[in-house]
């Protein structure tokens, strides 16, 4: 007797019954809709069916030289931050009711997802100090690109977009791709000692600028003076757009909303979401209430049911593609819901005091690391006058890339060599220190600098 594949409940006997009910002899009779000239008669090249045991074994073999198998130590950040995550977050997001449900289009059957989204929107808006948050975006880079598109809609008659040179280089690449065919003129605001130059912004900004994009903490880890930059942007009617990849910093830094941001975006990966080789993460998107009708993405709102009980539903969907089609504020459909849930549970567990304390630990360990590295005599702080949260740039004795290679051979990824983004930058190393690094870990990094640089 042939045994069905484990994912398929239809046995040979069932199949015969179903075919009979359909009034046909064989599956082939059901395929007449596919014209003969476009039928494929070969076998797909994906090999034989494998058992769970075989797949596990293969994965283990493939990953044998990975960071985990090596029990490596890493100081790499640059847009992805290695924060602690309580075990319960993973467990709760494995619940089938969350994991295997669809987008909550039928609110009566998805109040669990919807209330979680409402809590998510509330917490994200609170962290950014903004009035509204959407229900998530793909990641911070696409959030930022959509913020630029939103600025285009709100400032229709303006053609220029100003972007700080301290924005994550990969976010800038995404912005460029998104804007390539839309007639936007994008220019970059130079830096002054590691942060966006307020004076340069003053001379660049004009009545034809739709928006000004600033990242803080910026790509080099430095905290930007959002208030001053925002004031200049707004003096000419440009929208002030902020991007925050390391959102744990919002625990201790003034929220963008209090610094005049019109749109504030960021990365929710910092809320315990696994690094997972770059995704899935959760893009955050917030704005002022007056712009809500131009916002991209889903929104969850509170309402009541037929019995007057507090309930939730997706709302303002007339902005969205399934209603408005080519006039929609965005094409986004599937977003990052489960990762938004992950972030929500993490933020709930971390809580008001824990979130603050975690940020203080990052700050403290980073300051300790700076001191330790300086004491080696083989590294200098590139932007010694700037304030940083949990990332900073050192100029290392010799080539940063060579140091990176030597250290990683010993099981330590010491940061990101900035030559990755700018070939002329030979000595820069971007180092991130989160709460997960112990004093010994930091001392080890310093020791390696002393020995290898």
């Amino acid at each position, binding site marked *: 007797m042939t045994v069905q594949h484990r994912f398929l*409940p239809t046995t040979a006997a069932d199949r015969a019954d179903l075919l009979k009910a359909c009034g046909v002899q064989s599956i082939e009779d*059901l*395929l007449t809709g596919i014209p003969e000239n*476009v*039928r*494929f008669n070969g076998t797909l090249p994906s090999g034989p*069916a494998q*058992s769970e045991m075989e*797949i596990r074994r293969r*994965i283990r073999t493939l990953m044998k030289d990975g960071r*985990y198998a090596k029990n490596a130590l*890493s100081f790499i950040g*640059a847009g992805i931050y290695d924060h602690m995550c309580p075990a319960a977050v993973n467990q*709760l997001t494995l619940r089938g*009711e*969350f*994991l295997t449900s669809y*987008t909550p289009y039928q609110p009566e*059957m998805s109040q669990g997802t919807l209330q979680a989204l409402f*809590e998510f929107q*509330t917490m994200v808006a609170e962290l950014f100090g903004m009035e509204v948050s959407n*229900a998530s975006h*793909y990641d*911070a880079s*696409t959030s930022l690109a959509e913020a630029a*598109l939103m600025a285009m809609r709100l400032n229709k008659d303006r053609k220029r977009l100003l972007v700080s040179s301290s924005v994550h280089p*990969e976010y800038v690449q995404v912005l460029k*791709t998104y804007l*390539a*065919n839309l007639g936007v003129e994008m220019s970059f605001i130079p830096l002054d000692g590691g942060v966006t130059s307020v004076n340069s912004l003053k001379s660049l900004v004009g009545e034809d600028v739709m928006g000004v994009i600033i990242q803080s903490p910026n790509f080099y880890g430095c905290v930007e003076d959002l208030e001053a930059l925002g004031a200049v942007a707004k003096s000419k009617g440009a929208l002030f757009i902020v991007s925050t990849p390391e959102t744990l910093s*919002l625990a*201790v830094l*003034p*929220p963008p909303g209090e610094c005049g941001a019109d749109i504030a975006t960021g990365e929710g990966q910092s809320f315990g979401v*696994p690094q*997972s*080789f*770059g995704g*899935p993460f959760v893009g955050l998107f917030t704005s002022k209430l007056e712009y809500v009708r131009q916002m991209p993405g889903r929104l969850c*709102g*509170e309402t009541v049911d037929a019995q007057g009980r507090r*309930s939730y539903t997706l*709302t*303002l969907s007339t902005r969205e593609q*399934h209603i408005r*089609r*080519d006039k*929609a504020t965005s094409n*986004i*459909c599937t977003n*990052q*819901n*489960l*990762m938004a849930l992950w972030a929500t549970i993490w933020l709930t*567990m971390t*809580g*008001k005091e824990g979130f603050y304390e975690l940020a203080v630990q990052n700050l403290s360990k980073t300051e300790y690391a700076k001191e330790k590295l300086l004491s080696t005599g083989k590294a200098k702080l590139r932007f010694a006058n700037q304030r940083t949260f949990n990332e900073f740039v050192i100029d290392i004795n010799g080539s940063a890339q060579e140091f*990176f290679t030597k250290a990683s051979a010993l099981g330590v*990824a010491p940061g990101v060599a900035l030559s990755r983004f700018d070939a002329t930058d030979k000595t820069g190393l971007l180092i991130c220190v989160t709460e997960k690094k112990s004093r010994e870990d*930091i001392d080890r990094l310093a020791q390696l600098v002393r020995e290898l640089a």
Partner: protein
Amino acid sequence: MDFLKKSTGHSVVLEEAPSFEISREGATAIGLPALDVPRVEPKKAFIKARVRKARLPELSEPEVMRHFTRMSTWNYAIDLGIYPLGSCTMKYNPRLNEEIARSGELSEAHPYDPPEWSQGHLQVMWELTEDLKGVTGMPGVSLQPAAGAHGELTGLMLVAAYHKAKKRDRKTILTADTAHGTNPASAALAGFQIVQIATGEDGVIHPEALAAVLNDDVAALMTTNPNTLGIFEKNIQTIANMLHEKDALLYIDGANLNAVLGLSRPGDFGADVIQFNLHKTFSTPHGGGGPGSGPIAVSERLLPFLPTPRLEKQDGKIVLVESTPQSIGRVKAFFGNYGMFIRAWCYIRALGGEGLRQVSENAILNANYMRSQLKDVLHMPVNAPTLHEVVFNDRNQRDLNLDTTKMAKRLIDYGMHPMTVHFPLCVKSAIMIEPTETESRSEMDRFVCALKEIIKTPDVEQAPTRVFREKVDETKAARELRLTYKFKD
């Protein structure tokens, strides 16, 4: 037939207020190790620090566990029963894939790790790329887009780049009236204008209809195949030839690939670009609305324009090439939703090439079974061979006190998620059913039985009522916007 009395399927369903209301000062659900370096206060470290701490809830670990577990019981899910949303492909999500994707080996890696540490991850990406090439018969793949709509946008940017490289400005994208909303929205975002083609009586695009609108401004035609009526575009080869004659391109929305794995390959009829929805066809969980993953495959014509970074083999090692001369560039930071690649990779390995074809065959068999069981009670506006999904409307019910929306809401009271309704737009009051291959006959029979009972008892006014929340007031939600919790202080 017996149906559950609560639509979420849980025997105990408890109320639970938003976390902000049950929060109590001093509670926490995390413990941190004592700080092992000198403490630095934010007020000292920054010129200006945050003044008021963010009002996150304060709860202990057991309270958080109950909070979210209770909320989870208010959801319906594929793990509970049939979820026949047409076009959405709600199939079973194998759990090995979760175990592997969430294991430290995979989830702790950083994309900027030293290349020697990353070979395993790149190998997974390489193999998935090869799988997707195999499924489509197309020579190039990019895994970068984060979801179907993102793949569409990327694909259309490639189309724009193709024409730009030929130094011409083409502004029109043709779509069919069966198109999903993301198609026109993506086209607009890529800087194009839409011209819509009406499908024929038989539910497909006809060469004559295409000829009427095909001119030198057409950059591409975008169509789903099989289309959103569950019908294979039988003229697709002719259509592809007509487009190529004008040097216009063929975009296939691959959301419905679950119907054709191993049965038909878009590359064989000349498709130039297609997006996959790994969260549909390759069973990565929908997660209540994402994360998804929307890789694209392309023809020779579009290879030079694929996004960067690109996977290449150099001296037996897999590397990511960061820039190539004609590329449109990057559409997302890092390498895409890698965690979803893993799940899809596991799924494809579990089935193998032969198993993938069985998936499509069984999906088609199940949809045809639904059709056979419902065709006597529901009207079929288009009578053509059904593949993986079948579309009806409410014409037979119009004289009764029943319509599409009501039928959907009443199904909830039978403990089942409704089908897709009011889509595709070319069918008024559409009822779109896609059971997928992972439903058993008895599960499909329960659905059919419930729908027939509803049709037999059209006069029930209120629905749903056997639920945690009855009909939710969506008008009030939009009129009196409450998008965040209003704190007392």
